């Protein structure tokens, strides 16, 4: 029966081409617009590390007290840590794994002397960074905790960087020059680009950033300046040592806490740490600390820009208008065939059968509209790619889920819009229609 209804549906599509085309166009355009923004939105608000996002936490400590200058965040906490606090957390080793991190900019002299020196983005981190974030390696692996301690001159490079510098060969053991110092390559990453770039949202949340990784302690020893955001509560004496002693916040910090009990314990530890700082006279306010996992962190940091929210809203408003439109047209189309329906009813078709037939017919329209909308989404993303800033390009890829969403959205929305016209059709009185004929 279903095949018969689909056949009837297809035939009726051909019967009133203008109306059908208008309906499919309306649904298609609506789906195209909303899917284009939804794709971008999904990529922006997606989970960058789904397998572990509930075990990774960013601690926050109020080291400025209630009398902060300027604009205050909603919970009066800074989103980065000072060197003093980050080092205290590292020393305490209260989590299974932990790492303070920051981004710096260094000169790289390529091994091929013909190439010009280039400026690269370098992430200073601890050895725990790699296992903590499940970072995949193509060659070699992370440096060791001993390398952290000894401030070893070792680096991990991304796959792209390895392709650029060494033509993609296994470069373990080779050396590179960073700011005129020699570093030994111990690991080459496989493709790895979490979107959003959750562990440091200060640089470019959706673009590429880290190209090379090196031990945090070495970066500090070599006075490698951070290039993210640095915020200071009060004036700080000039110089690197003064910066390290200051309450300026400029470091990111992540901890891996596998179980709820670990999280509870770590919360307690943070609170006690702040209380201890108060006891020794560094803070003169009650302890104020926070611990957020990855998704909480992304929401807290408003990683999806308000423009994207607005666009999403506008395009779904547009889809809604398109559906109202399709509903009207569908009503016109189905009621235009009240005569046929009357005949079928008179020949013994039940209301349910009429309802099913009309539903299949709207489903066919919805499917066609959804497929058409998908094509428009592709076009929309292509144009979005040329319109949006470079950092957003990674967000404009259509994945299988997006395709499924578009087609299902098309069918579901059209069928929903077709419910009322279908219901009306099912209530056509056979006798009245036959008489009118």
């Amino acid at each position, binding site marked *: 029966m279903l095949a018969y209804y689909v056949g009837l549906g297809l035939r009726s599509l051909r019967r009133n081409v203008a109306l059908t085309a208008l309906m499919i166009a309306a649904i298609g355009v609506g789906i195209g617009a909303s899917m284009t923004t939804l794709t971008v939105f999904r990529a922006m608000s997606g989970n960058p590390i789904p397998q572990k996002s509930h075990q990774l936490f960013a601690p926050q400590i109020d080291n400025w007290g209630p009398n902060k200058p300027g604009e205050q965040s909603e919970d009066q906490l800074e989103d980065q840590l000072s060197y003093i606090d980050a080092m205290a957390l590292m020393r305490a080793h209260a989590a299974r794994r932990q790492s303070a991190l920051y981004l710096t900019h260094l000169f790289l002299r390529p091994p091929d002397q013909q190439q010009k*020196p280039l400026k690269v983005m370098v992430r200073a981190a601890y050895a725990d960074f790699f296992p903590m974030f499940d970072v995949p390696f193509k060659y070699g692996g992370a440096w060791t905790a001993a390398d952290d301690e000894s401030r070893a001159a070792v680096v991990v490079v991304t796959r792209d960087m390895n392709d650029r510098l060494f033509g993609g060969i296994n470069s373990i053991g080779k050396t590179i020059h960073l700011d005129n110092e020699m570093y030994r390559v111990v690991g080459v990453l496989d493709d790895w680009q979490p979107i959003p770039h959750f562990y440091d949202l200060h640089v470019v949340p959706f673009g590429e950033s880290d190209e090379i990784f090196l031990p945090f302690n070495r970066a500090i020893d070599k006075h490698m300046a951070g290039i993210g955001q640095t915020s200071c509560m009060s004036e700080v004496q000039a110089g690197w040592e003064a910066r390290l002693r200051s309450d300026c916040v400029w470091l990111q910090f992540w901890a891996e806490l596998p179980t709820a009990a670990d999280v509870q314990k770590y919360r307690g530890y943070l609170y006690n740490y702040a209380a201890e700082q108060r006891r020794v006279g560094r803070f003169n306010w009650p302890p104020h600390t926070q611990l957020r996992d990855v998704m909480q962190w992304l929401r807290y940091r408003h990683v999806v820009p308000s423009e994207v929210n607005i666009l999403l809203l506008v395009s779904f408003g547009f889809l809604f208008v398109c559906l109202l*439109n399709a509903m009207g*047209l569908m009503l*016109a189309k189905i009621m235009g065939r009240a005569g046929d329906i009357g005949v079928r009813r008179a020949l013994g078709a039940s209301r349910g059968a009429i309802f099913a037939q009309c539903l299949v017919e709207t489903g066919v329209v919805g499917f066609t509209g959804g497929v058409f909308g998908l094509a428009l989404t592709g076009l929309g993303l292509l144009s979005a790619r040329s319109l949006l800033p470079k950092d957003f390009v990674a967000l404009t890829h259509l994945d299988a889920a997006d395709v499924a969403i578009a087609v299902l959205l098309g069918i579901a929305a059209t069928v929903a819009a077709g419910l009322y016209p279908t219901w009306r059709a099912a209530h056509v009185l056979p006798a009245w229609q036959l008489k009118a004929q």
Partner: protein
Amino acid sequence: MGIHPILSAMRRNKFGAILIAAQMAVTLAFLANALTLIEHRLAWSARPTGVDEANVFVMSTESTDHVGDPAARQATDLAALRSLGGVVDVYPTNDFPMQGGGWAETVELVANQQTPAALTAYYFGDERALHTLGLTLVAGRNFSADEIVVRTDSNVPQASGFLVTKALAQRLFPAGDALGRSIFVENTAAPSPIIGIIDRLQGPYTGATGITSTFAENSVLAPYRPIGESSRYMVRAQPGQLASVMKSAEAKLFDLDGNRILRSRSMAEIRLQAYRGNRGLVVLLVAVCTALLIVTAFGVIGLTSYWVAQRRQQIGIRRALGATRRAIVKHFQTENFLIAAAGALGGIACAIGLNLWMVRSFEMVRMDNSRAIGGALLMLILGQLAVLWPALRAASIPPALATRGG
């Protein structure tokens, strides 16, 4: 002909009328808000920086070998650039307008003030800064050459005085007596006097929303020559010679020292890049709005055509009873007007409600209610235009139809 028969005809087609009205209301709600946003972003990206943008470019240079004295390197660069033909003036800076981000400071009026009096962009410049950027001094005086001091990461001397923008001066001293008053910037213990007021110099931030957008016109120019591993030079070229001067300036600096990474960008280029996201948003919104209007118009055409088809006989009867073609057209026009008016009224309410909600939930700008009213008029016109074709088709139904069938 009165409105009564139209209303009773509509009552038989309640659902269709409601659909059209709802469609118009929703269209209007989004249209009015999108227009508000478009207007705001266009105005935002067109704001003048105060700089002579057509003739100014920025050069960023950084030595790759870190040998030698950075101050001497910079002095050599500056002297070379100044001697170049077509160069009006040059000065080294930390940040520049439309950079996207940069140094922000709090300004206090008394020592260790808890809540700052203002937030401001913090620029460094020497006595040539005003001339290089083409800024206008509205009060006070420029820095003199002997006031300019070298500033490094480890050596931050006290500024002898500041130049501030008019916007900041007004914010700090609403009475208009900013000149000569002392303010605390960066150093919360020792103030420096305001020695001059600049008509306009925009901060380096470009975000249309967020905290930095609230002090976009506040800038302090401090008498520092920044020295470090990297330098940034603002260069002003003779009118019309920007491209050639940019090229010869790059060649000159590479001649002096090939071991450097050099990047130059014109202010025009910087503006284009700075507001690229804004422009993208505007284009997308315009596209969606246009599509909204088209879809709504086709919705009206489609449903009205259906009604015409449905009422062919009634129309025929009316024609047979003596109604003119004009009267038939007028019937559908009045009907559409009533529906559109209902939709527009509902739409104005929806537009205002949507705006209030968006202002609260996202960083949306407040809508001027005239936008909603303008949008309502647009809906009425759109409805009339869309209904014209089906109405004319209805008017062409021959009266003879009434005698057939039924």
